[in-house]
């Protein structure tokens, strides 16, 4: 026992003794006659053993101390909440995922959503764009405009931005690998629209390091990927200080089967790579941390893993900023969380069951502190494009949790639970131990280059799948209470060849009419900036304004940086 002898410890020693007596006299004989349902009981993702009973003795065993481990809401280490009054003054912002469909329809759909009173939108692009190709590149045949908007040149954004910017105040852009090109195009398009950048927030996800780890939409080798991401961070902090230059989408690690400890440790070591590289540009930690503290985190069906993960995330960020970087401003030590029930808990089979799952996961999000924002996916997302009924139910779920359950009426209501505090502390300790391993490797970029994250996730993917195949984890409708398989109705998005042909024709017409000499010179300046290490955003900005295309600029950087092509070992396969 670490603690000095005091009344608290003595009391807990008594409890430990009493717990041993209870085990021998009461529980032991009962279990001998009534064998347990599972052997062993484990948490869903971490597969950590779960004891039959937690008592104050367990808090002693993990070295729990109220003042250092929890403190008070709105104060270091923020375990209980980053907000001084939890959700008693305001609920979290309730948002909804909405399918956008084809890229060309984006402007129309965006107008509709703005008319419904929304003020923020998310801009997603097709896989050609996010992987750094123009629509007429043979390798992207069939992908144009499918997963989002096709963005070849400034011309496409000028059309997409036919929007009422008096209503649109926030735009999130998800285009990680080609980030400087994408950032430049948005800045140029906003300029053309006469939008005052001080009166508007552009939020770029800029999440290239997560792409290498599990998503796969990368172009250049990791060190160059990080450098261009930091070019964007630096450009935004210096030129548009009201904008947001990074989001760590831990919610992409989670569907790749990162367990809570891996999620915290991988996300935070990844953000450290961004922070270290940004500090080298001449900033202080107190200046940059409030720009680099946006995290999107999923909660899965294991109720307590989800709740404890959110609590541990807040605390680990605060400790990291204070202990590793010496941050002093509260804004630097407060993480900004956006939470969401995970879609990977939802099943294609018996889709109405998913409403129950969403309700439970949204409750876990709220009990874990919810964060600034919660998003609920739709219960029939696996089946088809969002239907009106599913959208209504999705919104209602959050309102039911907020208004009917009482979980948000007091701050961090599960604090002090012997189990919750034990699990939170164990996650925190394990996450710091894992981060130490990553820092010893030389940090997240080196860990990516060595395939460390990818292999760790690959193992989790295989093991968690085996848990389901071999029935250790019961999944209702999948391996438990299954129904005879009905023919599944899945709406498959069919290729629309005309849309692709139109986009290609539009791009080729642009190439024919633009000032080619100006384009060539501007593309060469981007190549030069890539080579000499100067910030790529200004060079890209000049180039997109003379209608150099997205793919041409990505190719100019390919010439200098090369491409990332991991083998089986490095891909975690």
């Amino acid at each position: 026992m670490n603690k000095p002898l005091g009344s608290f410890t003595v009391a807990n020693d008594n409890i430990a003794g009493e717990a041993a007596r209870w085990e021998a006299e009461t529980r032991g004989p009962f279990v001998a006659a009534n064998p347990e349902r599972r052997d062993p009981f484990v948490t869903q993702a971490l597969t950590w053993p779960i004891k039959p009973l937690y008592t104050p003795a367990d808090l002693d065993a993990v070295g729990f101390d109220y003042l250092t481990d929890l403190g008070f809401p709105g104060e270091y280490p923020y375990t209980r909440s980053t907000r001084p009054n939890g959700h008693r003054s305001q609920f979290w912002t309730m948002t909804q995922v909405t399918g956008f469909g084809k890229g060309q329809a984006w402007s129309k759909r965006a107008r509709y959503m703005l008319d419904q009173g929304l003020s923020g939108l998310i801009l997603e692009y097709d896989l050609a764009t996010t992987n750094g190709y123009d629509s007429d590149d043979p390798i992207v045949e069939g992908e144009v405009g499918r997963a989002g908007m096709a963005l070849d040149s400034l011309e496409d954004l000028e059309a997409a931005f036919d929007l009422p910017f008096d209503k649109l105040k926030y735009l999130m852009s998800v285009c990680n690998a080609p980030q400087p090109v994408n950032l430049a195009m948005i800045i140029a398009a906003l300029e053309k629209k006469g939008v005052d950048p001080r009166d508007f927030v552009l939020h770029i996800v800029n999440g290239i390091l997560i792409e290498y780890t599990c998503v796969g939409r990368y172009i250049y080798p990791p060190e160059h990927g990080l450098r261009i991401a930091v070019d964007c961070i630096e450009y935004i902090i210096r030129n548009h200080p009201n904008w947001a230059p990074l989001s760590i989408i831990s919610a992409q690690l989670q569907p790749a089967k990162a367990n809570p400890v891996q999620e915290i440790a991988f996300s935070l070591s990844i953000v450290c790579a961004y922070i270290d590289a940004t500090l080298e540009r001449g900033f202080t930690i107190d200046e940059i941390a409030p720009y680099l503290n946006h995290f999107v985190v999923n909660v899965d069906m294991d109720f307590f893993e989800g709740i404890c993960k959110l609590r541990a995330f807040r605390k680990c960020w605060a400790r990291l900023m204070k202990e590793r970087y010496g941050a002093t401003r509260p804004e630097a030590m407060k993480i900004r969380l956006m939470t969401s029930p995970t879609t990977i808990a939802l099943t294609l089979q018996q889709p109405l069951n998913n409403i129950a799952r969403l309700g439970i996961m949204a409750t876990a999000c709220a009990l874990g502190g919810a964060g600034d924002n919660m998003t609920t996916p739709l219960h029939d997302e696996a089946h088809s494009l969002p239907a009106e009924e599913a959208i209504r139910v999705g919104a209602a779920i959050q309102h039911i949790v907020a208004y009917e359950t009482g979980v948000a009426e007091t701050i961090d209501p599960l604090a002090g639970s012997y189990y919750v505090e034990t699990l939170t502390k164990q996650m925190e300790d394990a996450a710091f131990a894992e981060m130490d391993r990553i820092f010893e490797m030389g940090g997240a970029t080196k860990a990516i280059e060595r395939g460390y994250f990818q292999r760790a996730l690959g193992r989790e993917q295989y093991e968690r799948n085996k848990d389901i195949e071999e029935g250790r984890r019961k999944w209702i409708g999948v391996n438990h209470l299954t129904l005879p398989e009905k023919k599944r109705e899945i709406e498959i998005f069919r290729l629309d060849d005309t849309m692709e042909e139109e986009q290609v024709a539009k791009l080729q017409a642009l190439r024919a009419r633009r000032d080619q000499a100006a384009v060539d010179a501007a593309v060469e300046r981007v190549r030069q900036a890539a080579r000499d290490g100067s910030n790529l955003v200004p060079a890209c900005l000049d180039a997109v304004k003379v209608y150099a295309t997205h793919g041409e600029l990505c190719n100019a950087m390919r010439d200098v940086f090369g491409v990332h092509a991991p083998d089986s070992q490095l891909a975690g396969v």
Partner: protein
Amino acid sequence: MEDLPERPLRVLLAKLGMDTHTVGVTIIAHALREAGMEVIFTGLKQTPEMVAAAAVQEDVDVVGISTLSAGHTRSLPKLARLLREAGAGDKLLLAGGVIPEEDQAFLTEAGVHKIFTMGADTRDIVTYLRGWWAERQAAEAA
């Protein structure tokens, strides 16, 4: 029981096009390795030409394509044709992922030997591959 094959089955796994969903292919790779097979992964963003060349160069017995994008109706027939043209039409061509039922007959006709859709049990895939390999070896011995 058949005698176990003397050399392990060699399998090339690949992702075609821009589809970057790797969870399925990762699980399959681990399951096949655990079953004693040799597994090579091409990495992401491959063209049918790149996969056909890799299949010949690596001298694999099986080519497994994971697809979660709608491009499979173009890329898989093309890959089957390229393999035949390279004199590698005897390799077992498998496809897995999101492949609608109405596409399956067309793909089989075009030279895809077997399709496992999303949710297939890895143990069934291993059993299928072992069965195919035993038959192939028996046929070669005869």
